[in-house]
């Protein structure tokens, strides 16, 4: 089967929509973790979760299943999304909230949300004050966290009975199909990466590979790469590739700030956080298989799971493949489905061609014996 053809074109879009609509705020990813574990189960020999909640799917080398010590490659895409948490219930039943992860408070005014209580989700809206109560100066500024509140429309006593401090608040899921196979929705950072993982594993299931492949959906990335820290410790990979999103050019964000263009393929990162040979191999594989791709430069901290993976135990050779995304950390993030598909293809070929010799070469910096 020609592999430029998707296994099921609609599958990927549907996965992306389902993933975008699922709610998995950092530290509370269990429901989505189960969904991902189930999907990974169809292509993996074993799926487990570590104590922090990372989902780890293992696909053993084949047809060299019994080869001793096959090289290990870990693909990591984080599951979690930023969100809000109830910090106090005010008189009148209004909820004060604080961010979990780097929420952009600018998108909150008037946003329709869901409060996740013990007994299920309550709809609500992030309130704001009418202009006649605000000075010109206040109109020119976004509200501070301490002034924002969520209105569930319920009487105070009902709110107090149903909502508690610590309950999570998420954007009300709404994914939109835009023109030309583009999707808009919340949490595409990094559900796009999770979809890449699924796409990659579903392709790999029809390919031979000498490496043991660990598909890891990590938790708590948005609050400080915490899942990648424990996940990588547990997997002990030779090669680790983080799969995340990166800034795509958009109105107000030009080439100087955004490395990539939507629809032009996955983005391979170069820089100190990435092993040069892993980057090089990713680019070679892309060229060899006609995968459209772009390159971004990250001089220092990548802000992705790759940053944590690289310094796990005695060190891991890392790479970073990203899906271009507009409007990061807003409820209307936009990706191009084709970029996601091509990223999956790239990683499948990368994993399939990874062997013990390549893994050994990663330790060789040319300084002789």
């Amino acid at each position, binding site marked *: 089967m020609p592999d430029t053809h998707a296994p099921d074109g609609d599958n990927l879009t549907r996965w992306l929509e389902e993933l975008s609509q699922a709610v998995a705020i950092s530290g509370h990813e269990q429901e989505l973790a189960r969904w991902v574990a189930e999907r990974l189960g169809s292509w993996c020999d074993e799926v487990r979760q570590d104590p922090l909640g990372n989902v780890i799917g293992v696909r053993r080398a084949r047809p060299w299943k019994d080869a001793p010590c096959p090289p290990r490659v870990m693909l990591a895409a984080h599951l979690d999304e930023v969100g809000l948490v109830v910090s106090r219930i005010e008189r009148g039943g209004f909820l004060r909230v604080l961010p979990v992860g780097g929420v952009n408070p*600018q998108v909150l005014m008037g946003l329709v949300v869901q409060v996740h209580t013990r007994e299920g989700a309550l709809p609500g809206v992030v309130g704001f004050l*009418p202009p006649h109560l605000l000075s010109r100066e206040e109109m020119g500024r976004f509200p501070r966290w301490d002034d924002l509140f969520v209105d569930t429309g319920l009487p105070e006593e009902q709110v107090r009975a149903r909502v508690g401090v610590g309950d999570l608040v998420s954007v009300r899921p709404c994914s939109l199909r835009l023109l030309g196979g583009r999707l808009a929705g919340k949490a595409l950072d990094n559900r796009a990466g999770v979809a890449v993982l699924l796409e990659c594993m579903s392709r790999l299931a029809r390919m031979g590979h000498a490496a043991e492949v660990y598909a890891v959906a990590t938790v708590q990335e948005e609050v400080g790469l915490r899942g990648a820290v424990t996940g990588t410790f547990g997997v002990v990979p030779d090669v680790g590739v983080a799969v995340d999103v990166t800034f795509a050019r958009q109105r107000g964000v030009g080439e100087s700030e955004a490395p990539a263009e939507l629809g032009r393929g996955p983005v391979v990162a170069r820089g100190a956080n990435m092993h040069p040979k892993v980057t090089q191999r990713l680019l070679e594989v892309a060229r060899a298989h006609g995968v459209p791709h772009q390159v971004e430069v990250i001089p220092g901290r990548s802000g992705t799971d790759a940053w944590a993976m690289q310094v796990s135990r005695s060190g891991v050779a890392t790479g970073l493949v990203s899906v271009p995304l507009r409007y990061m950390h807003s409820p209307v993030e*936009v990706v191009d489905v084709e970029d996601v598909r091509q990223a999956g293809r790239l990683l499948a070929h990368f994993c399939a061609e990874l062997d013990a010799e390549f893994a050994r070469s990663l330790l060789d910096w040319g300084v002789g014996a």
Partner: protein
Amino acid sequence: MTQAQAAPQPQAQRPLQPQPQPSPPGQAPSERFSRLRECLELLCPLPGVSGFEGPVRERVAQLIRPFVDRWETDPLGNLLAWRYGPDGPQQPGPVVMLAAHMDEVGLVVSGFEGDGTLRVRPVGGLDPRVLVGKAVRVGASRLAGVIGVRPIHLQKPEERRRAPEPEALVVDIGAAGREQAEQAVQVGDPVVFEAPFLVLGERRVLAKALDDRVGCCVLVELLRERYPVTVVAAFTVQEELGLRGAQVAAFRADPHLGLVLEGTVGADVAGVEPHHEVTRLGAGPALSVLDQASIASPPLVAALVRVAGRRGIPFQWRRTGAGGNDAGAIHVSRAGVPTASVSVPCRYIHGPAAVCDLADVEAAVELVQGFLQEEAAPLLQRWRRHGSEGG
């Protein structure tokens, strides 16, 4: 007129707790309550940016057709409908104009950027801050789009709290370039918020465009009955642009008095002191004494207060002089028309989703209904003898 002239003390001037509970929990909602909820669910999601009220007009016309004697549309797009008094069209008797506007604030496509995004301009008073990061629908085909935001990661500290310049906001429909965008969208296409219709708890509704679909629903409900006076229902256009629809509708209707049915600011929210609330959700419909566009007719307001007192209908004063509505145009139509407003409190008006209390909507219907049944005809008779300033 001063507030002291109105005899019964309205709800909102008493200590504010406890809230009145017109439909106690557990009790089955009235038929009217359910009808109003359904009507809001039909009307709120429709796009109706000022000047593009078509979908709302069509749906309202469908809803009122069984109950009105005659209806027509005018050159601006107002929908006017007559329900004559008991003596029929030949002897219409006193004429009361009830007005609710169909339009909502929104955006209109004003051009294309090279990257395929749409330039937009606001229609009506829109706080640009509420646009950031929201989903929208473009044009009659309801094409999906989004209004983006610079990633927080890239923003400089001084940028983080600064409200956006309206021209920095564009709509992204996913077009890969200008050409693709131009094929899908035309300059002038309206853009509205994409928002769900949700019932919060037992009584509250969360929806876009409650200002003024809630007034439209009150008016649709009122038309189900025949009154001792002739009622002209005016579903107006372009209120958000300066009461333009109401101005010509009032001229055409030529009423003896006018009542405007509005959604108004309810700021009874966290961090707002009671004297700044304007209105409070659940405390009944609000009566204005004045706003920036009109001073309400004192005898008309007094008559509404009498009805409320007699029938035990909760109401509150609208506690600000800010804002303006169709009454501003109606009361100066032709030789002048005594006019007042009955408003339903709505939180977060002019945002993607506002919240109102169905008990207030129901009470607004009852209040105006009572007025039409008992007060309108005698009031107009008195005025015919003594002039309207006599009360």
